[in-house]
């Protein structure tokens, strides 16, 4: 590959440590301006969905929940506690049971 040969030459040049030889940059970087897509996935309706929508989806889209495996209620309690305590999710204590129940309903053991 041409690029590698060029870069090997540049590295070899640098290794010789000639203070006068200013190596040509190996790449020209260009500014970037992009748009990130929004999520089009929706949570299944059910009791507690509003609480999940209002609190959980502030930090992550619904896909995070929809791709999770089925786990027991205790595991969902631990997840919600982690989101509140560690990631500082703005979830009121009073909304926790509704969120846990919703998650257990859609992602609890069969």
């Amino acid at each position, binding site marked *: 590959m041409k*690029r*590698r040969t060029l*870069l090997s030459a*540049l*590295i070899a040049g*640098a*290794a010789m440590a000639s203070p006068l030889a*200013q*190596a040509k*940059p*190996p*790449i020209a*970087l*260009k*500014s*970037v*301006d*992009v*748009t*990130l*897509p*929004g*999520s*089009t*996935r929706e949570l299944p309706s059910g009791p507690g969905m509003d609480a999940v929508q209002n609190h959980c989806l*502030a*930090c*992550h*889209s619904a*896909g*995070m929940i*929809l*791709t*999770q*495996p*089925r*786990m027991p209620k205790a*595991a969902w309690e631990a*997840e919600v506690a982690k989101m509140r305590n*560690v*990631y*500082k*999710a*703005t979830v009121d204590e009073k909304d926790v049971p509704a969120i846990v129940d919703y998650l257990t309903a859609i*992602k609890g053991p069969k």
Partner: protein
Amino acid sequence: MVGFMPAAVSRRNLLRKAGIGGLASLATPALAQTTIRLALPGGADQRDITTAFPQKGSMVLQRTRPPLLETPFDVFDKGVFTPNDQFFVRWHWAIIPTSVDVDKFRLNVHGHVDKPLSLSLKDILALPPLEYAAVNQCSGNSRGFFQPRVAGGEWGNGAMGNARWVGVSLKRVLDQAGIKAGAVQVRFNGMDQPVVPDGPDFMKSLSVDHARDGEVMIAYAMNGQQLPLLNGFPLRLVVPGWYATYWVKMLNDIEVLDSPDTNFWMKTAYTIPDTPRANIKPGQTGVPMVPISKLNARSFITNIKAGATIAVSKPVEVRGIAFGGDTGVKAVDFSADGGKTWQAARLDRDEGKYSFRRWHARFKPATKGDYTLMARCTNASGDVQPSEPNWNPAGFMRNVIESTQVSAA
């Protein structure tokens, strides 16, 4: 950018909106794959294939915001270097700058140093370049295969990639700033930010000795191009042989610390049981935890899919990729009988000890029936992939010998 389609006009939506009149002209895209099954135990394993992300091609959509995009596994059969537009993407927080002006960007180096630096990209590009190939693998790659299943990004095997990285040695930049006596760690921070006010900013640290080993790189190019924004443009840390959590993206801040880093992402997150292969029993407690570090050895069959039917009595070429982790691949062995007998695979060109290595083997099913194909990597340190899967509650460091079930007819 090339390949960018807003989600609102994604292929699926186009198809949905096209109606009957559009069917004829859209016949080809309609046949293109729009979902994929990752074959995770216990289900919830169907994922959309998305082309909606800027500078990215077809990716397995795990989560839109913050983006979690998996490399479709077919890509690994095409060669040992993973194309930039299909290299996996993983962000922790959803506030990610979507524009970067190369003239205004600065990398700041500060803390326990003689001379704080504020380097432009021009300054960095003027330094002697360093280049090597290295595998970048998420700590939780293959988490979806853990049994019992664990919460987190439910990846198949595609949260990994291999690229030829070009950048400058971190050591050179640190030497320029002059690390003061008494420094213990170097902390790296990128331009992403927590969504919630008190959320822990994502930062990772390496020991001063590791940071100064001459290999850890501040990369500005992968596979000959600038990095896609979602892979960390304009600069990302490359820590060869270590899990991707340390490869901080959009790196713009380096702080030399004179006391150990106790930030959440070092002290609590990305910690593993301090046991061989981070392996514990489900439910086991009271195990000391340590920060995750080196990759372990893995190998995959890339050209034969589970469930494939192959012709009896005809030789088939089996090929795949392997990597040694923090060292090179010494050997790959192939088995067609579920690990009872093994044959040495032929190794392709060595692209460097941190790279994927392509391997080849031949297999001729003598009789009709089911076959369990396996590949097993032994790395240069003599570590061999185990036949039993490891387990830990975060779903990190899977490296069991993988199996591919096929039948000969």
